[in-house]
């Protein structure tokens, strides 16, 4: 790829500045919704952790049934936190990359409202007992149609400018195009087929595919697409290797969807399909390595940015975690590891590291980067609060991950040794306690961030001279290599 995107105002009729291009209010509102849901989801997770601590504060109250709150936790993260944040970031990035507005800003606002209805009614539906037995897709059956329509509208809204734009296309947009197609298909497949078309073992295979594709074909491509956008802009240098970008994209597109059945290894699903999923999963690990290498080579000679630019630090720590989860995955997908760690807290740790440690961190990084500007401020109210936010969240995430990983090994080996079940609960208790504390520390970290946002919105200027000026280069779509 050898193009340089034209500067704003050149070539594209009717658009004289970036203000015409991007509706920053939309970005801001999506980010605010996202933060609201992440707090709800984290508190739900905390409630559930208390249940495992035998300290549940509302025992025997139907609306506070811990199982239901667990689903609020996972669905809140996937559809409230991550989906909203990505929609906001897409509104920032897509018009800049295509030099075209989204199809319709009215439609964008409609999608914003409709999506909040989807998430809120999912929460209400789950709490009143209308869950659907599809993991990560517990959204009640009667809300699914609205969600599908919403996702189709999202795709139309963003694909219009992308497909209209001319010239070679930047990596980010490859990921976005694929993600828009995939998300609709994945959501419809996972929520409808196992419920209405096929049951039994085959529905398990499809549910596994859904769990996996939701992460792999919705969250991952949008996440990486945004990394390919933000990292070069903030570092002011191009991505290291275009070839590796190609390998990363096509490797992901081919291998990732073939992983589905690895969620049910040793289940009654035919064994040869399980082997296939295992091999595809290990292939994904190789692909992921190329992507991570590409980004770390991009950081070469700019390592100082990790210290001076908080957004970059969030992004790269997320990438380290990404590499960790994928490495972990290459082992845990092996049939040897599966004997021990399947069904244990090891997997819970794995999913926390992926969903929050990677994509959550990238989202927080984007927010750190964009929010002062979206709020019309010249900088963060207190950059030290952002540092607290980063370190509390980052360290606690690592603690939680290793804690749950070890807990998983303890549980798995005790089960294999046929220990009585109660003994495995007693053995898990200390790990669950550490997990609860690490979760609380993460929540406290978010309070630093949210307070900082509120103060920034109110005072619109840094309380102390900012060491980290708002990077105005982010306005320009200088993304080409």
């Amino acid at each position, binding site marked *: 790829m050898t193009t340089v995107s034209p500067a704003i105002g050149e070539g594209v009729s009717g658009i004289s500045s970036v203000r015409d291009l991007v509706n920053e209010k939309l970005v801001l509102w999506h980010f605010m919704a996202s933060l609201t849901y992440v707090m709800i989801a984290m508190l739900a997770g905390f409630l559930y952790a208390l249940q495992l601590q035998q300290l549940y504060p509302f025992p025997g109250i139907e609306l506070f049934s811990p199982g*239901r709150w667990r689903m609020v936790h996972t669905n809140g993260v996937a559809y409230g936190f991550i989906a909203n944040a990505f929609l906001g970031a897409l509104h920032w990035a897509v018009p800049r990359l295509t030099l075209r507005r989204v199809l319709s800003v009215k439609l964008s606002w409609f999608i914003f409202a409709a999506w909040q209805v989807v998430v809120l009614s999912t929460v209400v539906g789950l709490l009143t007992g209308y869950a659907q037995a599809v993991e990560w897709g517990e959204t009640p059956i009667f809300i699914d149609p609205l969600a599908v329509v919403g996702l189709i509208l999202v795709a139309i809204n963003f694909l219009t400018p992308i497909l209209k734009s001319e010239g070679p296309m930047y990596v980010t947009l490859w990921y976005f195009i694929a993600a828009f*197609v995939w998300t609709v298909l994945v959501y419809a497949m996972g929520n409808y087929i196992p419920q209405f078309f096929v049951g*039994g073992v085959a529905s398990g295979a499809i549910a596994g595919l859904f769990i996996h594709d939701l992460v792999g074909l919705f969250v991952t491509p949008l996440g990486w697409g945004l990394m390919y956008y933000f990292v070069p802009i903030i570092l002011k240098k191009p991505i290291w290797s275009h070839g590796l970008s190609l390998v990363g994209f096509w490797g992901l597109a081919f291998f990732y*969807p073939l992983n589905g059945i690895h969620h049910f290894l040793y289940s*009654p699903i035919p064994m040869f*399909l399980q082997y296939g999923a295992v091999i595809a999963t290990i292939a994904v690990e190789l692909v992921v390595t190329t992507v991570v290498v590409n980004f770390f080579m991009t950081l070469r000679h700019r390592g100082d940015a990790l210290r001076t630019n908080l957004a970059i630090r969030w992004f790269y720590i997320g990438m380290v975690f990404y590499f960790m989860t994928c490495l972990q995955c290459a082992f845990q997908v092996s049939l040897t590891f599966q004997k021990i760690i399947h069904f244990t807290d090891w997997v*819970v740790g794995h999913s926390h590291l992926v969903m929050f440690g990677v994509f959550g961190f990238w989202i927080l990084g984007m927010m750190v980067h964009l929010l002062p500007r979206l709020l019309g401020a010249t900088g963060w109210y207190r950059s030290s609060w952002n540092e607290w936010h980063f370190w509390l969240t980052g360290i606690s995430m690592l603690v939680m991950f290793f804690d749950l990983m070890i807990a998983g090994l303890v549980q798995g080996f005790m089960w294999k040794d046929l220990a009585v079940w109660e003994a495995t609960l007693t053995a898990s208790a200390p790990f669950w306690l550490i997990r609860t504390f690490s979760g609380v520390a993460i929540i406290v970290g978010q309070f630093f961030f949210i307070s900082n946002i509120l103060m920034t919105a109110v005072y619109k200027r840094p309380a102390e001279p900012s060491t980290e000026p708002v990077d105005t280069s982010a306005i320009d779509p200088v993304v080409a290599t």
Partner: protein
Amino acid sequence: MFESKSGIFLIAGLFFFALSFVVMGLLPWLMYIDEPEQTMEDLVADGVIHEFVDLAERFPDRFAKYFPDGVTRTSFAAALKRGHEIYVAEACWHCHTQQIRPVSGEDLRWGPVSHAREYQNVLQRPVLFGTRRVGPDLIREGARHGNDWHIAHFHTPVSVVPTSVMPRYSWFYDEDDYPNRDGMSIITYVQWLGSWLAEYPYYRGEGPAGVELGATDIITDAMVTP
């Protein structure tokens, strides 16, 4: 092709997705296409389980209120269906699995390894394999404990297992702390799990005292399937 918009759209978005769906979804689907999915009627065709009868014996007035048909297959089917709904709604399946793997001594702990055929029924739509075991696997739960144990356990799990982290389900009980319709249904459901196996201790031929059973509503040997 690999960088043109329509190329990406078609290859990555549609073609690769379709490929994965065929391999990871359609293939297992087609493999079991000849294994018919049992309907609710099929599931109760062989009679009711002992524990359902036991509930009727223990709580005759309440049972009659919740299941006006008495101990019949229709009532049994209604209880199973409701029990399954509760199992999904309360996310029991996020703490309990329903599959015995052929590894890690799971068959020693719980019973025979799961077979694909066991899942070909409407109460496994979507399948309840589960992905996390905070509590034990339940696919062989039937008759492992008596009804009285479950009645105490769902109400206050720590009263029977002090280290339990299972939630309390007080709303399965009426104001006098007897199981209500939901309580009886979820107990029937967990007691049914595994009852289709030859190894299931189903108290062959043991009839309920004082409860009139229709000619077809006895517990028959036909419960012993595959």
